[in-house]
């Protein structure tokens, strides 16, 4: 099971390409670091890979890899799944896979945002937020250092680091094949960062989950990742960028 993106391109307006010809492949169990200057489209790539937005070009290969993923999943759930790929063109990413209850199967690529405050419904208690995709088991919660008492609170009553752990629990409860961490710990202090990454790396190893780490923090990326990619270097001659470090 691989997440392959080929010839990805995204533009803000006609002839104003944010990036073009981006190739990248995520392998299961591998920790990949994605680096690039600010404004180069790192977050956009993350959103495309997680199915939040559609790329302007190069979607075919990504779609194909994900369709393959859906077939794998549909057999795992027990035949009760119908693929409605042709039903809505806006969601060609494969998220339209219906469970008998009417809801869809969690998308196999989950994204963690930089700001957890915006990624949770402020009117919901944490219990409900964490269980939105699937119910996380107790082991996962304790591994991430989530105090059971937090689950009875509202998001604004938790700190950023506590909230980010809950967002992680929400994503990991879905047992994604790939986790994309878009500046996941940029707003946290070093100790919390270390704790969270320690837990995530453990889970990734245990589940064979592929991880894409997007960060400005070069020491962090070097420490964590099996390999670091810098897709702009080769892809876009028009953009003058320099690689540091």
């Amino acid at each position, binding site marked *: 099971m691989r997440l392959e993106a080929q010839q990805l391109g995204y533009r803000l307006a006609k002839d104003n390409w944010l990036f073009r010809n981006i190739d990248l492949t995520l392998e299961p169990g591998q920790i990949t670091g994605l680096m690039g200057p600010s404004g180069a489209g790192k977050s956009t790539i993350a959103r495309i890979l*997680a*199915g*939040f937005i559609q790329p302007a070009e190069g979607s075919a290969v990504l779609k194909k890899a994900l369709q393959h993923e859906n077939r794998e999943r549909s057999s795992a759930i027990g035949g009760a799944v119908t693929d409605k790929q042709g039903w*809505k063109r*806006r969601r060609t990413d494969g*998220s339209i896979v*219906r*469970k008998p209850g*009417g*809801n*869809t*199967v*969690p*998308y196999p690529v*989950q*994204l963690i*945002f930089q*700001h957890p405050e*915006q*990624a*949770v*419904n402020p*009117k919901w208690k944490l219990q409900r937020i964490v269980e*939105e*995709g*699937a119910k996380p088991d107790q082991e996962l919660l304790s591994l991430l250092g989530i105090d059971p008492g937090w689950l009875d609170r509202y998001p604004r009553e938790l700190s950023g680091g506590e909230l980010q752990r809950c967002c992680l629990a*929400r994503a990991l409860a*879905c047992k994604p094949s790939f986790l994309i961490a878009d500046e996941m710990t940029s707003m946290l202090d070093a100790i919390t960062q270390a704790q969270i990454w320690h837990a995530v790396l453990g889970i990734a190893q245990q589940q064979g989950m592929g991880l894409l780490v997007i960060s400005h923090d070069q020491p962090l990326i070097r420490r964590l990742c099996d390999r670091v990619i810098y897709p702009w270097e080769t892809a876009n001659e028009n953009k003058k960028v320099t690689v540091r470090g």
Partner: protein
Amino acid sequence: MKPDNLAMPDTASGGKWLNRRQRAVIAAIASAMVLFAVLGFGLALPGSGLDARLEIRNQPPSLSHLFGTDWLGRDMLTRTLKGLTLSIFVGLAAAASSVLIAAIMGLAAAMGGRYMDHIIGWITDLFLSVPHLVTLILISFILGGGVKGVLIGIAVTHWPAMARMIRAELLQLRETDYVRLSSRLGRSRWWIATRHLLPHLLPHLLTGMLLIFPHAILHEASITFLGLGLSPHQPAIGIILSESMRYLSTGLWWLAFFPGAALLLIVRSFDRVSEYIRLLIHPASAQE
């Protein structure tokens, strides 16, 4: 310039001895009391005041008949209160159904895809392009008048502005990270609409209903006044006002004055409450 003035700049505006929240609470309690008093009296008063008693016709306001009597000897206080009860009932029912239609339309426009959005936008524009009252008269006339005609007419004509507001609100909410993430977590659009979006809308719907209510009552009264609404034997404010027009020139001022003032009082108090609630709920003005 004395330095004291600099130290106490608030004395100039010392007249405002209550903040907005307190004023809103007081206004809400007062108008609720008015409403319940009218409803209670309207339902509790015996119907005998509505019987024609020609020996006491055309009496000016007195202690036995506070609002006077009309040209058939009917007690105007009873007629006014019963009429207001009917008006409040019609107003609430029409406002509630209007808000319901607006919520459904707004949700469908925001979550139903691009074509649904276009279709609903078109319908909304269609209803907004014709003045309220004209559509209302047409619908009420087609349905043959009566409570049913007025109710449906008001419900069908008052939703478009609100539906637009709801749609705009939802389009904004739909782009937030947590709503977008919800579909990535495998939740259907219906699930997202009912769990994420609808709870967010509830305060808007409540204020919307309170804002539509005075409109509904006034439109009910005006369409009845024009003779296209409730039937003449029902004690409705519009009927009372339109009938008393003929007697105004003969000096029977109390026939129109008290019912009109009562209607104004009800409408105005509701308007005030809904305005306060809107200001309190709206984040930009909540702290003023």
